[in-house]
């Protein structure tokens, strides 16, 4: 599957990234730490404002739930105590969802990955790197990594798994969400498979970050 990533594409926000992963394409912008409104302010840590806009139409509860899941991924990773009473605003525009409205796994995994790159670009303190991958189980019990739209449609279940990545290795589970019909063993298989898949994805991101740093410090050469 093809992954195309680019960072610093928007010049009026602090960090931005675009990611095309298979049929799904996402653009993410990060602003922060900026001044929070009094009702958002948290006394000891930074507030996270996450906005997801769908590719078609206005955002609904479907996007609300995605925002909530992304928040569960980001809260432990962003070092909030560095920016007390500040706000980190993350705006995500889905350009192409690459899946039907009933599914969210492909979108969520691409959103998590794109947000990682945008956060790196914005230089917001992160405890650890992270990456995500989506999976599906077909009707003949085969695990498909990064399913296509039609594979997802005919699948029994869809899954998204995100790991923390340290020194290029997937270390701790960060988030996982599965829906459909699947067995206990299949979920263990997917969790193991995901660890190797996110490591592969991370290699690509490392290259993207390398390119970004080279571009940032080009005047040193």
């Amino acid at each position, binding site marked *: 599957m093809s992954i195309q990533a680019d960072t610093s594409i928007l010049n009026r*926000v*602090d*960090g931005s990234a675009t990611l095309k992963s298979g049929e799904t394409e996402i653009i993410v912008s990060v*602003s*922060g*730490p*900026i*001044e929070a409104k009094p009702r958002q302010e948290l006394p*000891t840590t930074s507030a996270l404002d996450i906005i997801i806009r769908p590719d078609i139409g206005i955002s609904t509860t479907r996007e609300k739930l995605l925002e909530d899941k992304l928040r569960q991924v980001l809260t432990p990773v962003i*070092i909030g*105590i*560095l*920016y*007390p*009473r*500040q706000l980190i605003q993350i705006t995500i525009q889905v350009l192409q969802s690459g899946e039907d409205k009933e599914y969210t796994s492909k979108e969520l995994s691409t959103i998590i990955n794109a947000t990682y790159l945008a956060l*790196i670009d*914005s*230089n917001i*303190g*992160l*405890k*650890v*790197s992270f990456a995500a991958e989506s999976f599906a189980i077909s009707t003949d019990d085969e695990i498909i990594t990064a399913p296509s739209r039609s594979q997802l449609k005919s699948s029994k279940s869809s899954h998204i798994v995100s790991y*923390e*990545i*340290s*020194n290029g290795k997937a270390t701790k589970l960060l988030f996982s969400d599965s829906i459909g019909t699947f067995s206990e063993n299949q979920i263990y298989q997917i969790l193991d498979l995901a660890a190797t898949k996110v490591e592969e994805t991370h290699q690509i991101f*490392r290259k993207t*970050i*390398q390119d*970004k*740093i080279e*571009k*940032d*410090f*080009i*005047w*040193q*050469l």
Partner: protein
Amino acid sequence: MSTLIIPGDSIPINQKSEQLIGPGLHIDLNTKEIIPINSGLLQNGNKSIHIESNSKRYIPQTNDYVIGTVTGSFGDIFRVSLSNFSSSVSLSAMAFPNASKKNRPNLKVGSLIYARVSNADPIVDIEIECIDPTTGKDGGFGLLEDGFVFDVNLAFARNLLFDANHPILKLLVQKCKFEIAIGLNGKIWIKTDDLKYTLACSKSIQNCQSVTSTRFKEIINTVFKELGL
């Protein structure tokens, strides 16, 4: 020696000698480990270790030189904005040379000032001052009159400020006479005798951000030529 480092990587800490931990590194409160929190180039020296990374949003650090805009005044305190949408910082009317109750600095909303961050603890209000604490004199800080302010990347601003013999400044000096103030918050103030020179200088500096140092001369020459200088 500088290598790429991203969050999650382990960093080589010199066990034998004491090292100061600089920007981009953080001590995890639970595990007491030193972890990289930004991605950039690891600068591992004898006495200090830090990550050199670029960003656009300025986070105040003590002793940084910054350029700010006055956005309001409340009693003896001026509110100063260091970057758009960030929380404003406070500048006491007493933090000027020779300031007293009667002798208040004349700062209006919209004035530009060059100042030093004197207290950057994020849990309380951040303070800046226009006074050199060692001498008690102005030390180059204070109101910036006239001139023009523009934004650059933070890493580039650091490089310009800390390298007194920066090739860009050397090249510009050959072109025209100018006054410059570089803020670590990514703002550069420049003042020349003629608007054309101001524009040329600012454009040159901005354009130099995205080219290798070998092309500085070429870029500056083209910018000046475009403006007919």
